[in-house]
């Protein structure tokens, strides 16, 4: 019985080593937590507009028959700054319909941020308490959803979008090539 007790740490070590070896070799991405949203209808959207005077955002904005990009951002988020030029280009050069949602961000912070960087959003909403983010399965900002014309989420990017995402997924999606 005593002997067995001495073997216990060794056994634990072997178990852990086995798990680590499997993690390293199986090609699993530990940072990826997947997405429940992809492939399903877009979660509920019911938010006040970020820009004063705009109409509030509703589910109808996501079911226009045309692809929509939904981007959660915040002025306090540095990766959002890095991906912002990509949205500037998407809005300006590709004419994409982009819905921006300021997540846990005060209006007085988000609006000057957009004024400084340029505002590529066709519609902009304010999710101050983060409840909509919860419905959408948001883990943080920035996150971006590609929603097709019938309101189905086709892709969900966690983290800033990159040149590669743009060229391989987003631009083909806007042309209707990604299902």
């Amino acid at each position, binding site marked *: 019985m005593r002997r067995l007790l001495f073997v216990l740490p060794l056994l634990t070590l072997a178990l852990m080593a086995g798990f680590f070896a499997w993690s390293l070799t199986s090609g699993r991405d530990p940072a990826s937590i997947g997405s429940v949203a992809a492939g399903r209808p877009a979660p509920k959207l019911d938010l006040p507009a970020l820009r004063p005077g705009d109409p509030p955002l509703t589910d109808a904005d996501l079911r226009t028959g045309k692809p929509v990009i939904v981007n959660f951002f915040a002025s306090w988020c540095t990766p959002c*700054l*890095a991906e*912002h*030029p*990509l949205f*500037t*280009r998407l809005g*300006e050069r590709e004419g994409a319909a982009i819905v921006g949602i300021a997540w846990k961000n005060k209006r007085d912070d988000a609006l000057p941020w957009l004024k*400084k*960087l*340029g*505002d*590529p959003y066709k519609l902009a909403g304010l999710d101050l308490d983060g409840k909509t983010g919860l419905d959408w399965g948001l883990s943080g900002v920035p996150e971006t959803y590609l929603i097709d014309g019938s309101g189905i989420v086709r892709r969900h990017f966690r983290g800033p979008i*990159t*040149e*590669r995402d*743009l*060229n391989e997924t987003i631009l083909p999606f806007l042309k209707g090539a990604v299902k």
Partner: protein
Amino acid sequence: MLEFLLALLTTATVGALLWPLLSRSLDRRDRLEGELAIYRDQLAELERERAAGTVPESEAAAGRIEIERRMLVAGDAAAGVRPLAASEAWQKWLPPALSLFVPLLALGLYLQVGRPGLPAAPFAERPAGQHPAPPQLDVGRLLSEARARLEQDPEDADALAALGEGLTLEAGGTVTQPAIEALRRALQARPDDPRILYYLGLHEAQSGDSRAAIARWRDLEAKSPPDAPWLGVLRAEIARVARAAGLEVPQASQSAMPQPNREQQEAMAQLAPEQRQQAIRSMVEGLAARLADNPQDRAGWLRLANAWKVLGDNEKAADAYGRADTLGPVDARILTDWAEAHVRQLAPGAAPSPQAVAVLERLEKAEPRNALALFYLGLAAEAQGNKPAALQRWKTLLALLPADAPIRGLVEERIRAAGGG
């Protein structure tokens, strides 16, 4: 000093380790001898006390038996360990050997890869000028100055470019939408401005169009004079963006100006100054000959003009600028160089030639406050008998010049000679 202290410390540590290790070196057999000697002493003492009558006979007998029993136990114990003698020597010498080996290994390694002769350089003693911090651009001032100038003239290309740069720096290096708009407007007036081209390319790189960014920057690189101060940064940025986008890092394009390789540069450094001048001249003439065959190479003409200007052949330089200009209008920076190439050909006090006046007038139009244009166009006006126009230009120039500018005296003299002031 520090080395000495460290050596002292190591020696003390090794000594502290070795002392108990070596002093424990008594052999088991030596220990047995010691034990037996004690027991023999005890036996002798017991015998003396029994003889003196201080210990009763029966107790003395019991004591002797006890001591003899202990002697037997000690002997048995020593006999039991004796076969282990070989490994005992191993155990005895390994710890001291290790405690000496480790510091000696460290010393050998340090002498091999370290640099014991290098003087210490404590941070506090380092002279501040050794690594001068790069001059920080004052973003706030850059922006406020650019905005003030734009209020005066909303189409001031230079101010628009400065605004674009300032907005980008303010956003931590992200080319923002307002910056892009300013830069695009500036580009219309200055299609060759390296600053505008750089930031527009940076936006393309940041917005996921690395190919366009690299193409724009390659073009800028080809147009830049070979000694342009921004070339290093530009090439590093091209390489960085190409790497990030997984594109092949493009080789520096074959510039129209032959770049001497390392051996050629070294060989050139060996030459006497006149010979060196000759060698450079022959390279420039080679470029001129190639351009005669391929006259559509605008960047090549600009490079050639720059080379002639550096060599002091202003006539050929002005001609090359003209050829570049016919292929595509040059911007204000190049106009300045071109005008300089013209006016350097003038004898002191002579009026500029009609070709020079044409260039100077274009320069004045692009930059109404350009000192070179103001001065020489004044000379031209005076030569034509238009003294009021000459006086007006020179007075404008005088107002623009700083109070300690050496050229002030000359301008004032001209104004007096023309009957003004």
